[in-house]
């Protein structure tokens, strides 16, 4: 099996989700995988592209990324961002399965002398960790146990919905009660609490635009984590991480609470558990609410 992926970092990797990008690269390198970036990638359209421009122009964004990936080789395309995965995967399937869309998108790509036949596979970094790396190898790479930490595994929506299945058939988890994140947490030696809100919505992009309408969603997530004694929340989704972290102030004001719960990426936990550098690899300096208990464990 190939140990090389074509990597699609996505826009959040250069902004609010840099610590996901840094820690993903560090963790994958430690596990022996090579990531080669799509050379001149563009935005995937996130969740609002369709509303602004309609389906085809939004799909054309992913088509250009995929056409470039194909020029770089036949290896699978991997991304760590939930929205990037969702869009890139959906467009890839559409090009493969829908003749009309395939023709339309190729006509659009043709305007720049490009084409794409739908023959690549697009994969989420979490699914790669589950199916290619495997839980045993992850446990095997842990040299710095995080025992004593209680972590709420918050999967969010788009990491497992709508595609918990993989392109090669089979699936890596269920979309309602996924356990892969708890498995990662437990593999590090930390304890995953039984988190009922694991797939509750953080409000997504509506939280960015008009948080007053979605603070109650994040309040629910934070309340359960606090009530169950979690030291921190871990999530694989860049938008969940930012929303649930940065709105704690506003939530405290509205509900009279005093939340100050660090929200980290699963890859930040893994990086520390793999004995990697707290700043260079785990990027713990990039969490607005510092995850001090995790930092204290870092080598």
């Amino acid at each position: 099996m190939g140990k090389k992926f074509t990597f699609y970092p996505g826009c959040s990797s250069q902004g609010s989700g840099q610590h996901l990008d840094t820690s993903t690269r560090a963790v994958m390198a430690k596990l022996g995988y090579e990531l080669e970036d799509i050379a001149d990638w563009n935005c995937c359209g996130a969740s609002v592209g369709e509303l602004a421009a309609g389906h085809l122009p939004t799909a054309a964004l992913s088509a250009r990324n995929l056409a470039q990936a194909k020029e770089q080789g036949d290896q699978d395309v991997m991304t760590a961002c939930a929205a990037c995965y969702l869009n890139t995967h959906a467009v890839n399937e559409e090009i493969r399965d829908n003749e009309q869309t395939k023709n339309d998108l190729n006509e659009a790509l043709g305007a720049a002398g490009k084409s794409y036949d739908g023959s690549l596979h697009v994969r989420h970094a979490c699914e790669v960790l589950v199916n290619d790396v495997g839980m045993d190898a992850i446990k095997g790479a842990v040299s710095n146990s995080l025992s004593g930490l209680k972590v709420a595994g918050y999967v969010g929506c788009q990491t497992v919905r709508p595609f918990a299945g993989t392109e090669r058939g089979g699936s890596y988890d269920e979309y309602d009660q996924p356990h892969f994140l708890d498995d990662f947490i437990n593999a590090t030696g930390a304890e995953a609490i039984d988190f009922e809100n694991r797939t509750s919505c953080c409000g997504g992009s509506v939280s960015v635009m008009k948080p007053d309408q979605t603070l109650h969603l994040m309040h629910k997530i934070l309340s359960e984590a606090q009530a169950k004694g979690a030291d921190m929340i871990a999530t694989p989704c860049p938008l969940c991480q930012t929303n649930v972290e940065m709105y704690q102030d506003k939530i405290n004001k509205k509900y009279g609470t005093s939340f100050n719960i660090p929200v980290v990426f699963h890859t930040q936990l893994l990086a520390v558990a793999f004995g990697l550098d707290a700043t260079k690899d785990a990027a713990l300096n990039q969490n607005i609410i510092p995850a001090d208990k995790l930092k204290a464990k870092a080598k």
Partner: protein
Amino acid sequence: MNAISPNPTQKYDLSFARWVRDNIDGGERMNMCMQCGVCSGSCPLSDQMDLGPRKIFQMVRAGMKEAVLKSNSFYQCVSCYNCVVRCPRQVPVKYILHGLGRLAVQEGYQPKSNVENARFADAFWWSVTTFGKTDERLVTAKYYFSGGLMNGIKLGLGNLKTALGMIKTKRMHLGAPHKAKNRGELKAILAKAVEIQARHEGEA
């Protein structure tokens, strides 16, 4: 609140359901809806929607074009995909809602200035077509000020602490936007896609 039953003051357009079926992405599966309500019941934002997906689909079938396109429901959707994975009839609920939401703005049923999501989506699309990437700072700024100068200042100040936190942790950079290199190529592809989409909309 919004009754589905016939109402003498309501305008009906019986060709609307057919139009939605033929033109909205995923619309052809709307006929499969059996009105079970799983979508609206699973939606985390349904308490903020005036109608919600189940009612909307029945109203589309009843030809209640105006009432449907004036709904706020499309713009509350956060794309969590609960409805999509749970619908027992495989109706791509979220995709149909987004298609209807775009139509409502296009046809003037929703004044763009009132629809935060539409303004946000526009700011977002501007960044994507200009730079090839989402610049979170510029999208936010453009969106804030799309509701007027005072509104923008108010929103900006309200989020100052967050912005400073993001700058301090280097998650918001200062300086020129990140750009895709070959933006000419991207523009050509997008322009062509817009043209093809318009062609299809004209055909129907």
